[in-house]
């Protein structure tokens, strides 16, 4: 805490010095070339009301919530010379309703330095966004939208920004990294080498040892036939710090390849694949946990260039005991309580996380690494709840992307057929079928008008099946519909509307996981007949590409045939002004 105060003080003094040093006591300060100031400004005012069946008898839950925030993230980026950069984000925040000093806070959101040594080595120290491969260090998305409507993206982007989700699978970490390259000769035109060392947990000198994540990769590139990369990442506890008896080790080593088989004016055929193995074990002497397993993935990518058609056909096999903390840590933690209406009803039972919460509640999200597989909700995704690195899956997948020449229509399709490799609670194996279609219809391009008139559609169907005797059988069908429209009524003034609907019927067993990925029990058969619908309408004005004002109304309905009395409805109106600069 004290350290934070001192840091704040230092940064604030820095800010003043920067300002005073360059202001010459004038109102308009020309910021020197080597000083970059970017940032984010946000005003959020939201009003949320609970209704529906449960409200008819609920005498313990507030029916109406209103809150909001005004915040400014000032990103101060200094480049004292062309090879050194220092950056900090200073967050100023004011809670809606806090007048004259109340509800205000100042925080340091980011701090790092990076640069280039001798025109050869890049280094980066402090906060950084790291990504390796989907099986080593990668943050897969929550997978809860299929070409989501524009109107729902405002809230999702807010969560993404708060949680440092950059949309490319990077994971925010703290430590140091270095990378450099070798220009080679005959076989490999380029060899790129990178390494990093980060700390994800400090010790409390009582029960938690310090935890580090380190890794690196060597990429061998050949201009003609592609590249092959060796990847290694290891999550480990430093038991010697604080004198602990037990710690974990989770090394994952893989080899990934991208091989250009064919490339001409009409078509290109590539092979992309990755395979490797993981180990997870504890250092304690009594009853140590020790598992290892392998995975492999390979896919052929065909690009029919004149037709704007890309087809990917692949195979994936991830062993039941494959465990990679950096790749399997979900960004959604369903165990966390909601920040609004977490408990409803006179019995104050916890409200199940819904598609509305996942679009609204930033507190459900994290980028923390977890050494136990986080719980998942099969309604949201059963085929790959932990992304491509989901263990105990084997199957094939097919992706097709197509676009008209003028991009008036852009279509996408994805199909996946997976099966468990090892049964859960039985020798019978679950099979998973996932089908997803998306489409963007840019009507204005058809009509030849400038103002945007766009319809986006997305539909996902997922089926989980397992045979066997009655106790063993599982059948769960879930579908997710995303649809929206964006109509630019006047220049930069959009009418937005959208719907998102999740339907889930059937049953499954959700494993209770302990110690990394060990299934301890199945609490009971998970029976669902749920329907969640979120509709929204609103306006958006785009002051610029980086500055928008959204005024939206949303209605969410949740009904569960298995618990009809707890059906509820949430209405929400929010005003969101976002200014990126």
């Amino acid at each position: 805490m004290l350290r934070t105060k001192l840091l704040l003080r230092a940064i604030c003094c820095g800010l003043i010095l920067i300002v005073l040093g360059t202001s010459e006591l004038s109102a308009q300060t020309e910021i020197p070339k080597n000083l970059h100031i970017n940032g984010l400004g946000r005003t959020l005012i939201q009003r949320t009301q609970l209704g529906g069946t449960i409200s008819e008898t609920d005498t313990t839950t507030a029916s109406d919530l209103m809150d909001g925030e005004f915040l400014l993230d000032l990103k101060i980026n200094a480049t004292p010379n062309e090879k050194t950069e220092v950056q900090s984000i200073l967050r100023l925040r004011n809670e809606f309703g806090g007048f004259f000093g109340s509800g205000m806070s100042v925080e340091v959101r980011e701090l790092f330095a990076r640069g280039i040594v001798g025109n050869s080595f890049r280094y980066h120290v402090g906060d950084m966004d790291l990504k390796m491969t989907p099986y080593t260090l990668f943050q897969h998305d929550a997978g809860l939208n299929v070409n989501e409507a524009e109107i729902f993206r405002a809230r999702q982007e807010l969560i993404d920004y708060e949680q440092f989700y950059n949309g490319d699978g990077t994971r925010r970490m703290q430590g140091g990294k270095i990378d450099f390259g070798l220009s080679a000769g005959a076989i490999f035109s380029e060899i790129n080498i990178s390494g990093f060392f980060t700390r994800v947990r400090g010790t409390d000198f009582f029960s938690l040892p310090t935890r580090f994540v380190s890794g690196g990769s060597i990429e061998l590139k050949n201009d003609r036939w592609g590249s092959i990369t060796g990847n290694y990442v290891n999550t480990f506890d430093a038991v010697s710090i604080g004198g602990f008896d037990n710690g974990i080790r989770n090394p994952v080593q893989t080899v990934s390849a991208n091989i250009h088989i064919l490339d001409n004016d009409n078509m290109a055929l590539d092979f992309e694949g990755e395979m490797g193995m993981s180990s997870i074990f504890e250092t304690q002497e009594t009853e140590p946990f020790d598992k290892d397993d392998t995975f492999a993935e390979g896919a052929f990518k065909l690009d029919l260039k004149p037709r704007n058609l890309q087809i990917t056909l692949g195979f994936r096999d991830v062993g039941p005991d494959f465990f990679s903390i950096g790749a399997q840590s979900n960004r959604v933690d369903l165990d966390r309580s909601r920040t609004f209406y977490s408990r409803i009803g006179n019995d104050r039972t916890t409200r199940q996380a819904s598609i509305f919460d996942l679009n609204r509640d930033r507190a459900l999200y994290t980028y923390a690494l977890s050494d136990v597989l986080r719980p998942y909700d099969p309604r949201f995704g059963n085929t790959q709840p932990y992304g491509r690195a989901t263990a105990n899956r084997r199957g094939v997948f097919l992706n097709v992307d197509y676009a008209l020449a003028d991009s008036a229509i852009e279509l996408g399709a994805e199909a996946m057929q997976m099966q468990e490799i090892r049964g859960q609670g039985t020798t019978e194996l679950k099979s998973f079928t996932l089908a997803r279609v998306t489409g963007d219809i840019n009507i204005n391009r058809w009509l030849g008008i400038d103002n945007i008139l766009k319809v986006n559609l997305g539909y996902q169907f997922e089926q989980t099946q397992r045979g066997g005797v009655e106790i063993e059988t599982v059948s769960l069908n879930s579908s997710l519909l995303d649809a929206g429209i964006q109509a630019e009524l006047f220049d930069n003034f959009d009418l937005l509307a959208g719907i998102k609907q999740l339907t889930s019927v059937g049953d499954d067993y959700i494993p209770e996981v302990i110690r990394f990925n060990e299934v301890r029990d199945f609490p009971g058969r998970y029976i669902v007949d749920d329907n969640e619908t979120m509709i929204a309408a609103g306006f958006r004005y785009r002051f610029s590409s980086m500055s928008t004002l959204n005024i939206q109304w949303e209605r969410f309905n949740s009904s569960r045939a298995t618990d009809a009395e707890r059906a509820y409805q949430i209405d929400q109106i929010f005003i969101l002004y976002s200014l990126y600069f």
Partner: protein
Amino acid sequence: MLSLLRSLGRLVLLGACLAIASQLQAQLSTSSLQGFALPNGYLSPQGDSVLRPVPLRKLSVNGYYRFFGYGRNMTTPYPNLSPFEKTAGVGDGYREPMLSLFVSGRPNSKSSFATELFFFTPYAGNFEDNVFTMNLGLNFYGNFRTRLGKFGVRAGGIHWYAMSPMTMGILQIADRYSIFDRTPWEGVDGTDKYENYYNTGAINQDLRWNNRAFQGLIVEGGSLPGNMSFAFLYGKAQNNGGLQQAQTDPLATIIQPGIAGNIPTYNGFSGINRSLPSSFTGFRLKKNFGKNFISYNTVYNRNRLDSIKDVFQTYAVHTLEYNFNAAGINISGEAGAGNFTIPGQDTRWGETALLKIQIPQKYTYLPFEFQFYQISKNFYNDNGEVQTFSNPEIQNASTGPNQVGQASVAGALVQVGQFVHNRRGINLNTEKSFGPLKLNLGWGISQEIDTLSSELSYVHRVNGLALSRVYNPFPAGATGPTVVGPYNRVFTFFRGAYELVRLTDVDPGTIAPLTRKHFQALDLQAKFKTNLFNRPLYLFYLGSWMGASSTLKPLPGFGEDVYLQAQYHEIDLYYELFPNFILTGYWGVEYIKGGRDTEWDLTTQQPRNQFGRGLALGFDWTVSENAAFYIRQRFMKFEDASFPLDRYQGNETTIELKVFF
């Protein structure tokens, strides 16, 4: 079998790695370190997919440093001040920054932001009490132009905003106040302050001076077809803000602290007010006719009283504001109605009407401004210019008999031009200059529409500011007003103090008043400027004579039908002794005399008979273009001849250093 395959897998992997290594080995002999030309954007801010890489090129930065120190010695204090009779410190007790850093930027032609950083240290010899936060909040602005007109958006807050006198605004009483004591937001402008005051009555003041604090969204439209403009507000005004029982430490809202990847959720920052959503909504539609205009204004304030049941306390105001000029005569004003709803009672409507007529000197020997007004007891708006504290029924239902920082209660004795509800009245203002002597006179009478008040109140103008510094009206965790004095009838508010007078001609059973009150006010201001030894000398006099009586009277006075009279006489003196060095002086007296039907002291059997004096000296020393020292030494004395315990005496020294940049 499986282990064999796994081993085979390992072998192949090992082989692959060895192949890579051998290739690497083979290459190294012929390879060289690959030089990096600086890739575009590599050294641009991180997270470019979110934050724009093209940085802000201009940043507007200004602010001020304000050191305010004081030393005080209350030789005859009110009871219970011990051990603080003698004290010295830094800061004037209110939340005012020592360093205010106003930062604003305009990332593009349509968007901008602004905030005011707040720094304060009590110079107490430690770090713990230092404060680094924001002063008022964060403001965001957006504007755009369409074929229909120009539009602007203000989001965040605090925004200082006004619409019309009856809906959203703060009264501007011409220039009838002493400028001897400086406000925290005043500028550094040498003699200009006094020169402007002498010439126009306006001095350099902060934006907040004549606006209301508002948080939320403001959408404005101008240059609309038909010379129309509008404004829409949705958010919170100060009265329905607040964050009771709120979490204040972002670090305390982190789930699983200590593990990377968990950031503040800010859950709980709203406190219980989150489930008691209260809001303020306003709308204004204005039609301009050249220099004239007419506008429809409305505000709606809703305070939710129960988190589960739909129990609200609301008020709404709908008015038409107008401003017409013809043949040099200006006719302006506002008329409308407001309602107030208390749980369990019907909505009550009340009228409000204000007419101002300004007649220029060419028609009469003197320029005149007539004000006629009538404001119902059921007209309530704590965001408007009208003081609406007089209806006990509303007052008790909304804020209690007296809220923290409230500037008066019940039947207030006010200066000419200050409107109070449940009154109808007339004001007259005029002015005349005789060479360097400028006089302006204000006269007003009014009466209660309904007989409501069994209490009167008046302001202690002479030493009120110093008294409010001794007894802070906003102590930490305040749940009620700060009550001062041995008789618990003096209340401090922001930079002032007022006193409550209980009337005795009331129904002994219900304590309900029996007679309708009539109020009189007379303000006389004289401003004189001359040169002494070729240096400007300013002499300002401000006198106010106010009263309340049970019968209609043209002037305050004496007699059995008089409840109360208050006289204030203040003289300010400013003389530039040397260039940029201005001697300042102040002398003020206030005399308050209670009538027969006000409370009496039990021993002397006499009603109020108060006499307050204030004598102050000091200087303004402008040491550079943007920096100045301000020293003030005040001697204050107050005594009530009828209430022997009601007396205080002391002196206060204040030192202010203000540096603008």
